């Protein structure tokens, strides 16, 4: 087992999550908003692995595995949506995406 307190890892995870949240709030480029969401998912993964090691149970690692596959699926669909929006509008500013129709 590690000699580092669990809360230190969890604070790194909280910092990464907050950076991801600020990225979603501040940036207007949907690709960077997506990357910030990935950052938040990874921050949560770090918390899962930390608590899996602390609780001495593999369940946290299984959750990370499932979060990973869901993140991959989310990225595939999200990037496909961004590409198809770019094809129809030639512009990817999230402030201008306010219509559901093309």
């Amino acid at each position, binding site marked *: 087992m590690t000699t580092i307190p669990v809360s230190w890892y969890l604070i*790194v995870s909280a910092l990464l999550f907050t950076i991801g949240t600020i990225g979603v709030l501040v940036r207007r480029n949907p690709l960077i908003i997506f990357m910030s969401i990935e950052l938040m998912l990874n921050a949560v993964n770090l918390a899962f692995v930390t608590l899996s090691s602390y609780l001495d149970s593999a369940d946290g690692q299984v959750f990370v*595995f499932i979060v990973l596959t869901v993140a991959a699926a989310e990225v595939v669909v999200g990037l496909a949506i961004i590409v198809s929006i770019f094809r129809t509008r030639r512009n990817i500013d999230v402030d201008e995406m306010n219509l559901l129709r093309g």
Partner: protein
Amino acid sequence: MSGPALIISFFVLAVASVASALGVILFRNAVYSALSLILTLLFLAMFYLQLGAMFIAIVQILIYAGAIMVLFLFVVTMLAADPRDPDLQDRLPWQRGVAAVLGLVLVGALSYLLLSGTPLNEAARAHGSEALSQVVAQQGNIQAFGQALFHGFSFAFEVTSLVIVVAILGALVLGRKA
């Protein structure tokens, strides 16, 4: 690795991962942001190694830093032709200050909860033959992970395959020429 070496490596990794995460949201160029995110994911993989989760660390590098980020870079370079950078014509400039204040509130609240030890419950720790360290010592890391996945979470594992099929179909439908 133990003692001071472990603590020094923890702080180096913590500073490096937070700095590269800041790079993701601060770089103007989306390609630099993507590369910075790859760096963050690699540092997180090293955190996982430090925590003894070898399989998750390797999967993180292969799937996240490899497959997902290559997809990101493809799309970023494909859409980089747009000369109007959306971030340069921000219609709501006051949002930045509000976001920074709310971010400080979030990190303060999370750190307070974590330092006061709210999520940590000694009684929840696994003991005896259930304990991960026991299984890893007897059978190895990947075997321990596989047992947890296929014994406890086999239904979730099967549902994951459905999620992936739906994602493939969705990408096909969205990507086809209209």
